[in-house]
C-alpha cells in the first residue's frame, strides 16, 4: 500500500485500444476506452462474450497475447504504464497490481506446491528474502483467505484442493504482496454457487481490510451488483455505459444495458416471458 491518499484516481485509463492484425486489417477488440478507478474503489466491467472485457484487464497488466497492439494511456498511481519497459512492468505486476483468473485449476501449476507458488512473487519482488521468510508469508496469506491447517496445506499440490479452495489459493497469491489493485477476471464463473458466495465475501473482506482497489470482470450482472460500486458495460469492444452501480441498475440509459438487465433471470420473481431483444420476431440476432 502506498500512503499517497490524494484525490487522483488509482487507475486512469484514456483511449485504451487493443487491436489484432488480421489479413483484413486490424480488428479492434477494445475501442478507445476511458474510465477511472478511485482508490479503494470496486469497479465492475460487465459484458457478454466478445465484449473485450478480458482483453481490457490483460491490457492493464501488459499481458496481451502475442501480436496484440495496445494504444492509449493507462495511468496507475501516477505512473504511465504504457511507457514502462517490460522490465519495469514486471516490477509492477504481482507486486502492485495482482490478478485472479477464472479457472483456478488450470491457472495453478500442477508441478509445484501451493506454498511455492504463493511465495514465488514475494521471493522475486523482495530482495534478500530467505525461503523460510517466504514460506511464512505464504502461510500467512493462506490463513488470511481462511484455508484451514495452512502450515500443513502449504506443502500440498493444487490437485489436492477443491475448486473453491484453489481459488482461495489464487487469491492468497495476490495477497502475499499487498497489492494496491486486484483484477479479478471471472473469479467465480467456474465455481459452484455456494462456493461463489464464499469467494465474493472473501474479496469484499480483503477490500475492507487492505483498502486495495478491485476490478471485477464478469458476465454476471447479479454478481457484479453485489460487489461493485462503479460499473462499466461493454459490448463488442465499445464502452456502452458507465456510472455508479446503483444508477446503472436503477436507471440504465442505453438500450443494450436495459436489454441485459431484462435478460437476467431473477431468482426472486418470475417475469411472464423474459424480455429479450428479438425473440418475438424469431430472428435470433445474437452477438457471439
Amino acid at each position, binding site marked *: 500500500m502506498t500512503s499517497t491518499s490524494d484525490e487522483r484516481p488509482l487507475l486512469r485509463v484514456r483511449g485504451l485500444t487493443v487491436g489484432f492484425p488480421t489479413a483484413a486489417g486490424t480488428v479492434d477488440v477494445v475501442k478507445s476506452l476511458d474510465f477511472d478507478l478511485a482508490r479503494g474503489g470496486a469497479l465492475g466491467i460487465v459484458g457478454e462474450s466478445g465484449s473485450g472485457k478480458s482483453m481490457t484487464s490483460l491490457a492493464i497488466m501488459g499481458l496481451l497475447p502475442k501480436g496484440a497492439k495496445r494504444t492509449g494511456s493507462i495511468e496507475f498511481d501516477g505512473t504511465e504504464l504504457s511507457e514502462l519497459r517490460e522490465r519495469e512492468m514486471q516490477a509492477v*505486476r504481482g507486486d502492485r497490481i495482482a490478478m485472479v483468473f477464472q*479457472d483456478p485449476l488450470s491457472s495453478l*501449476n500442477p508441478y509445484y506446491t501451493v506454498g511455492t507458488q504463493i511465495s514465488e512473487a514475494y521471493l*522475486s519482488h523482495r530482495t534478500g528474502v530467505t525461503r523460510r521468510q517466504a514460506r511464512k508469508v505464504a502461510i500467512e496469506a493462506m490463513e488470511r483467505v481462511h484455508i484451514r491447517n495452512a502450515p500443513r496445506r502449504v506443502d500440498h*499440490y493444487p*490437485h*489436492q484442493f477443491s475448486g473453491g479452495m484453489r481459488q482461495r489459493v489464487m487469491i492468497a497469491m495476490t495477497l502475499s504482496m499487498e497489492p494496491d489493485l486486484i483484477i479479478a477476471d471471472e473469479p467465480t464463473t467456474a465455481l459452484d454457487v455456494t462456493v461463489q458466495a464464499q469467494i465474493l465475501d472473501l474479496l469484499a473482506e480483503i477490500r475492507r481490510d487492505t483498502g486495495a482497489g478491485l476490478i471485477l470482470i464478469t458476465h454476471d450482472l447479479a454478481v457484479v451488483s453485489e460487489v461493485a460500486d462503479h460499473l462499466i458495460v461493454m459490448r463488442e469492444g465499445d464502452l456502452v455505459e458507465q456510472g455508479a452501480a446503483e444508477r446503472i441498475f436503477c436507471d440504465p440509459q442505453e438500450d443494450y444495458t436495459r436489454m441485459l438487465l431484462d435478460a437476467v433471470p431473477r431468482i426472486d420473481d418470475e417475469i411472464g416471458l423474459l424480455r429479450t431483444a428479438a425473440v418475438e420476431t424469431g430472428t435470433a440476432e445474437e452477438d457471439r
Partner: protein
Amino acid sequence: MIRFLVNRLLGMAVVLFLVCVFTYVIFFVLSPDPAVQICGKNCTPEAIDRIRANLGLDQPFWSQFWTFLTGLFAGRTYGTGANLIDCAAPCLGYSFQSSQPVTEMILQRLPVSATVAIGAAVLWLLAGVSAGLVSAVREGRFTDRFITGLTLTGMSIPNYVLGLSLQFLLVVTLGWLPFPHAVAFGDDPVQWFANFLMPWIVLSIGAAAVYTRLTRANVIETLQENYVRTARAKGLRPGLVWRRHALRPALTPIVTIFGMDFAGLLGGALITETVFGLNGVGKLAADSITKNDQPVIMGVTLLAAFLVVVGNMIVDLLYTTIDPRVRVGSAT
C-alpha cells in the same frame, strides 16, 4: 508408495513370465526341430532320437519349459555323462553351433552395445531437446522452419543409408574418422570417442528428430497454459517463467518416451552394428538369424523384452517422483 512399488514389481514379474512363455512357444514349438539341425546332414532317425533324449526334447512341453525356466534362475545342464554341458544361471540357452552358452555370448558383446546405445541416447536427448527448445523459442521464424525441415530429413533417412553414406564421406573420402571398431575407453579415450561417434550419430538421428518435434510441440503448448500466464502476472522474470513454469511440464512427457525408446534401442542397434561391423548384441542377433542359431535368437529376444519391461518400470517410478499428481493422490 511401497504398495505402488510392490504392485508394479508384481506386474512386471507377470509380464516377464508371459514373455518367457510366448517366446518359448514361438521358438521351440513352432520352429523346426533343433535336434535335426544339431544332427547335421548325415543323420539317422536313431541319432535324432538320441539327441532329442539327450537334450530333453522328448519331454512334454511344460516339462521342457519348466527346465528352461529353472535354468534362468538356478542354471541347468544339457546332455548326460561325458557330454554334460553346464549352463550357469541365468541360463538363456546353449548354442550348439558355437558351443557356448547364450548368456556368455551376450555378455561378451553387451559392453559394445551398451556403449553404442547409451552414447546414442545421450546424443539424441541433448540434440533433440535443445533443438526443440530453440525451435520453440523462435517459433514461426527462419530458425524454427529450418530445424523443422531438418527433422523431416532426419526422420525419413533409413539407418543403413545414413550409416553407409557417413562412412563413405567421413572415413573413405575425407579420412577424418577411423573405420569403427570397438576400442575400450580405458585404453584410449580419444580413439574410443572417434570410433563410436559415427554409430552414435547414425543410431540417434531418427530419435533426435522425433524428440526435437516433441519438445517443440510440448513447449509451445505449455506456454499457452493458464499457469504460465499466472506466473507472468506475478511479475516473475521471463527466465524464471520459462525455467520453472514452462520447461518442467513440457519436458516431463519426454521422460516417458525416452524410457521406452531407450529400451527399444536394441532393434536399432541391430542395423547400426551390422553396418559398422561392431561386435555387439545387435550384430550377434543378425548373425544368429543368418545361421538360424535358435537359442541365441531366443536369448536376445528375451533380453530385449526384459529391457523394455524394465525400462517401462523405471519410467513409471520416475514419473511418480516427477509428477505430484501421480505421487500424491487428491485429498479434497
